[in-house]
């Protein structure tokens, strides 16, 4: 987070006191291997992650929560923990490898949680709402979850693998208006942006176009990789397709910071490739007139057939 996701880190540090979140960085963490390491050496990939888990367990002060802001880091930590729990043989092998570095990890010792999960489910929407001083009224946002936070979801932390609602609820708590769109958990292209840009550009265009069609002023992400692909590669994608999409992509922590009244600069806003300033200018002081409250399904019969409800 120190580098390419600098704005994510800055905004998180800026809001942590507001949401009563005490963070402690694992000293001397190593890379989780993303999806690449697993492709080359399976056991070593788990050992790589195992080192982080073991370091976390050894360094943790009064907590067993281990949080990650990145989808891949989160998934790898959760995966190694879950697979070591399920597979005694793997647990054994990984621990033998860790022993070579004087470490050991008992699976389950750390509860691996994504940052969004902690904010939504532990801190809670009400606590977040209570800290809001500048609600994001008038801002239409597309919550984008990507793949690896909600899938495969080893410990059933989310309401859906396909159409989750946690971040939408969080953004609504901040006063913004989450738009309904179908691409919430579609792939951002992952590493294809490097190894097969044509594939990635197609996926990025679809996401950006879909968000724009749904009426979103900006896309909100929970992962540095997704942010990078949608933001930095949006510019490349525009060149590739000769298009001119200008959909800014921010982290949910940055929007939390704005709603909590922090200065945009302290939240790393301005470091994005697609300028977020025009979108953020839409934030109004007043809450927009809410469309009439939802009533029990009793539409007037016209020609149209009634729509089935979501519940």
């Amino acid at each position, binding site marked *: 987070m120190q580098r390419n996701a600098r704005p994510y880190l800055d905004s998180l540090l800026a809001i942590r006191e507001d949401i009563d979140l005490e963070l402690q960085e694992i000293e001397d963490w190593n890379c989780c291997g993303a999806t690449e390491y697993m492709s080359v050496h399976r056991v070593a990939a788990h050992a790589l992650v195992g080192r982080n888990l073991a370091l976390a367990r050894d360094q943790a002060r009064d907590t067993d929560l281990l949080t990650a802001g990145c989808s891949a880091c989160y998934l790898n930590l959760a995966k190694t923990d879950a697979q070591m729990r399920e597979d005694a043989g793997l647990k054994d092998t990984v621990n033998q490898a860790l022993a070579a570095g004087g470490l050991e990890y008992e699976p389950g010792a750390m509860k691996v949680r994504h940052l969004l999960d902690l904010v939504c489910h532990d801190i809670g929407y009400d606590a977040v709402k209570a800290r809001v001083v500048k609600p994001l009224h008038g801002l239409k946002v597309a919550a984008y979850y990507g793949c690896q936070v909600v899938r495969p979801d080893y410990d059933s932390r989310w309401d*859906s693998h*396909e159409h989750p609602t946690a971040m939408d609820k969080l953004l609504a708590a901040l006063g913004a208006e989450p738009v*309904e769109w179908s691409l919430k958990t579609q792939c951002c292209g992952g590493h294809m942006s490097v190894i097969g840009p044509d594939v990635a550009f*197609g996926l990025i*265009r679809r996401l950006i176009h879909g968000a724009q069609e749904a009426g979103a002023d900006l896309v909100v992400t929970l992962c540095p990789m997704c942010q990078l692909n949608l933001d930095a590669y949006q510019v490349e994608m525009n060149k590739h397709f000769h298009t001119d999409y200008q959909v800014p992509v921010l982290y949910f922590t940055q929007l939390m910071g704005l709603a909590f009244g922090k200065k945009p600069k302290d939240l790393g806003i301005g470091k994005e490739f697609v300028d977020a300033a025009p979108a953020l200018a839409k934030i109004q002081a007043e809450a927009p007139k809410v469309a009439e409250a939802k009533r029990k399904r009793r539409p007037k019969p016209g020609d*149209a*057939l*009634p729509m089935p409800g979501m*519940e």
Partner: protein
Amino acid sequence: MAGQELIEQDIHEQQLTRVVVAACSPHLHEKTFRGVCERSGMNPYLSEMASIREHVAWVHTDKVAATAKAKAIVSGTVERVLKNDPLEAIRVPIDAQTLVVGGGIAGIQAALEVAEAGYDVYLIEREASLGGHMAQFDKTFPTLDCAACILTPKMASAGAHPKVHLFTWSEVEKVEGFVGNYTVTVKKKPRYVDEDICTGCGICVEKCPVLVVDDKFEAGIGYRKAIYWPFAQAVPNLPVLDTETCTYYIGGKGGCRACEKFCPTVPNSIKFDQKEERVTLKVGNIILATGWDLFNARRIPQYGYGRLANVFTNLELERMCNAAGPTGGKVVLRDGQTAPKRVGIVHCVGSRDRNYNRHCSAICCMQSLKTAHLVKERTGAEVYNFYIDIRTPGKEYDEFYQRVLDDGVHFVRGKVAEISDIPFDPAEASRNGAGTLYIQVEDTLAGMQRRIPVDMVVLAAGLEPRRDSSEVGKTFGIACSSNGWFIEKHAKMDPIATMTEGVFVAGCAGGPKDIPASVSQGSAAAARVLNYIRQGELALEPVRASVLEERCSGCRICNGLCPFNAISFIEERKVTEINAALCQGCGTCVAACPAGAIQGTGFSNEQLFAQIEGLLRDVNRSHEPEVV
């Protein structure tokens, strides 16, 4: 000479006093061999079966160990049978009245068969009318007869038959007793319409100002009033008032009352103060035909049901195709006007998928083929069926598939991955126009990923057990399998009966079935019940507990143990007594009695101790510790 005759011959020639048959599980042939003994003049309960097929031959591969186990089982059974006492079966009279639960096609068929034979039937239906799911259908496969045309006469016969006593808008609350002698408590929900006075003229429905979406009969694509008929051909032909939407009830019993005002009967048929009623029925047998629930397609968010307007369920399409339905039989998009030009039908929605239901819903392939045919016939649209396997094993079913192929319906072999309203790229968008839904699928036969643009999607949602099947099962004392369908006595040889004597299952309550199979099961269940009724009485296993008064110390440990209230304490003599009619023979009290005063016929301590000894006769006890 057949095996049974051999045994009979041996009993006579060798003057046998006990018989052990080492063969299959007693659940299969215990009755058979007891019959052999009885025919030979032996008490049938002096025979036992040793199960060396299901429990040995079919499950073990090590022949030496399996043979040793088989010998041990035989030895245990021989030791046990020596301790068997001659018993008399318990004879119970069979009440000639029958309870049928569920007024769908299976239940109607069962009730009519029993009634036609001249016996009284109580037909209980939870909804306000008979008919079940079949009443919602448009055409029936493979012949395409109109469902209403073949169902309505049956409903009318059941409604009019002097021997069929109809309880609609009612549920069974409690069942007590045992085969031949059940006492059933039925809850009649208030209809707020007096059944005896109402003539079914319909003025109340006409005058009611409240229009709401009809989620039940019209599957959510049509409307009804707050006071309404379940549907046009409802039996009984009486409206029912929905207090959740009626202005009078919502407003805290004030206002409106239009139905009452315009009701022409004297006295007035509208009864706002009608209360729930309870009726007690005495019956000898029970047929459960409680049907199924539709899989909730919202559980698969990637198919978009509830989110994307033009994604429909198969049940919505049934109502849409029906001439009496909300669109008058026109197949249209959610806007109610536009006929679709491209329609995708997705098979196996919620079926054959470990994330939802593992079972095949059995009817959706044929139903989807029927839908494809009807949509093609009515709109001329291009129709795509997305399937994993096409299953058409019924009579004339595959011929129907051939017909649909001939219609020019497209078949894509692949489980649909997702349905999206968002085009992949601008080219796709401009090719297909706004409002297109994209069905993304791997065409497994072509070996490529495809995105097929359509205007309308029909999801073939599967059949699920009723959401309350496990509670209903408990009420009637029968079990559900792990996936929720009622368990039959034997999957092949006795698919109608259950483990509980006198309780039978027909139709989809036991698993997904098409209409012919449901009707057959309704008839079969009736035949079983009529058989019992004609016998007049039934022989039950004489497995019962009884107290040896001279041994009973009056400690009362057993008193709280019986869930059937068969155990009572006689204050005068300070002993416990067991009512044989109420006792079900579980033996829990036998095991609990510290004085050994409770006897369990058929499973006595002596029998079980002997069996344990016999089972362990071959055990080498050399591992006993040496005494140092």
